[in-house]
């Protein structure tokens, strides 16, 4: 099975580690993937309003391209994943949006949500398997107490994202266990860090990020992992500064021995 890999804008610039290590690990794990051709911006935020169609079109183009390449779209950035997955859901279930989007784009073949949007973590869990990852680890991150930070974008609304239990997720904890470290569960791992308002209401973003990082620290976490560049920025910039935040691919690369 071949996956169409979708990096997104941020992974090409500010979040290069997320991308770089992500690719190296896929190669190491023997996952067949290729960067999707001529990818466009996902749209950055999912337009919730029912009367917004134009802002969803770039996501639809990517989804349709992925369909042509085999229908498995692999995402890494939580924000992109959220947008692509929800737009895909609209294309599948919202007759109005599907009709208008197809009318606008006039694709060779009508797109109706056929592509599977798969997050990198879902790939690790469902296609590779954490057991296999455990077996592939050469450098287990022993004695590291790591807190998983899920944030909002991967989990909610769970009806559409269908990623994990939205109130008590465990996929990243399982991942942490697989790479040999000790997961630390803490109450605010699925609470919003406030990244969206970090540019406009810094106070609020500081308050929310501090709440998350404090909660993690009090539970005994030495570091946090995330899949989201927005959370990464916000928790680092506006958190309590006592728990460093890493992309999960970086730790995976370290454990698999492909980090330079």
């Amino acid at each position, binding site marked *: 099975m071949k996956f169409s890999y979708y990096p997104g804008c*941020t992974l090409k610039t500010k979040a290069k580690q997320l991308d770089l290590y992500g690719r190296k690990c896929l190669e190491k794990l023997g996952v067949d993937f290729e960067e999707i051709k001529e990818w466009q911006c996902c749209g*950055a*935020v999912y337009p*919730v*309003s029912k009367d917004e169609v134009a802002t969803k079109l770039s996501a639809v183009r990517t989804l349709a391209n992925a369909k042509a390449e085999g229908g498995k779209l692999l995402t890494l950035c939580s924000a992109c994943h959220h947008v692509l997955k929800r737009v895909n859901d609209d294309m599948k279930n919202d007759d109005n949006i599907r009709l208008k989007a197809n009318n606008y784009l006039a694709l060779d073949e009508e797109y109706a949500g056929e592509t599977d949007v798969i997050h990198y973590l879902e790939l690790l869990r469902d296609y590779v398997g954490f057991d296999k990852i455990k077996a592939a680890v050469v450098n287990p991150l022993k004695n590291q107490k790591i807190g998983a930070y899920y944030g909002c974008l991967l989990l909610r609304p*769970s009806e559409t994202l269908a990623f994990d239990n939205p109130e008590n997720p465990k996929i990243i904890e399982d991942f942490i266990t697989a790479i040999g470290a000790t997961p630390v569960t803490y109450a605010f791992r699925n609470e919003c860090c406030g990244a*969206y308002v970090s*540019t406009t209401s810094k106070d*609020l973003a500081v308050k929310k990020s501090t709440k998350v990082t404090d909660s993690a620290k009090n539970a005994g976490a030495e570091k946090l992992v995330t899949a989201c560049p927005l959370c990464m920025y916000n928790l680092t910039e506006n958190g309590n500064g006592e728990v460093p935040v890493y992309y999960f691919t970086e730790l995976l690369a370290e454990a698999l021995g492909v980090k330079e």
Partner: protein
Amino acid sequence: MDRKEQAKLIKERSGTDVRKCMKCGKCSGRCPAYAEMDIKPHQFVSYIEKGEVEKLLESKSLYTCLSCFACVERCPRGVAPANVIEAVRQEVVRAQGGNKVQAEKIPETINEAIPQQLLVSMFRKFNK
């Protein structure tokens, strides 16, 4: 456009049925930005249900809602308060002079570390 019409439009745009609300307040009990909101998530639903939009259009909550969908996730009746807030925000930013973020002021507010996606999101969320 009269307010009633406007409320109807916002209701449609939100794509959620506000009449299903049973006024339990779970959305506001869950909201992480509650303290920063002048009008609370459950009130957005209630005002829209009654067709009263005036207060909502001037609410500061439009810019403090984190779009974290916690309220949507846990509503026992399948109502989506965040969608209502977003629908009102669209109503405001789409109107003339409704932009919240001034492009000229950007250099003052951002730093080097901000990821691209966040900048784009900011404009998408708060501007036309």
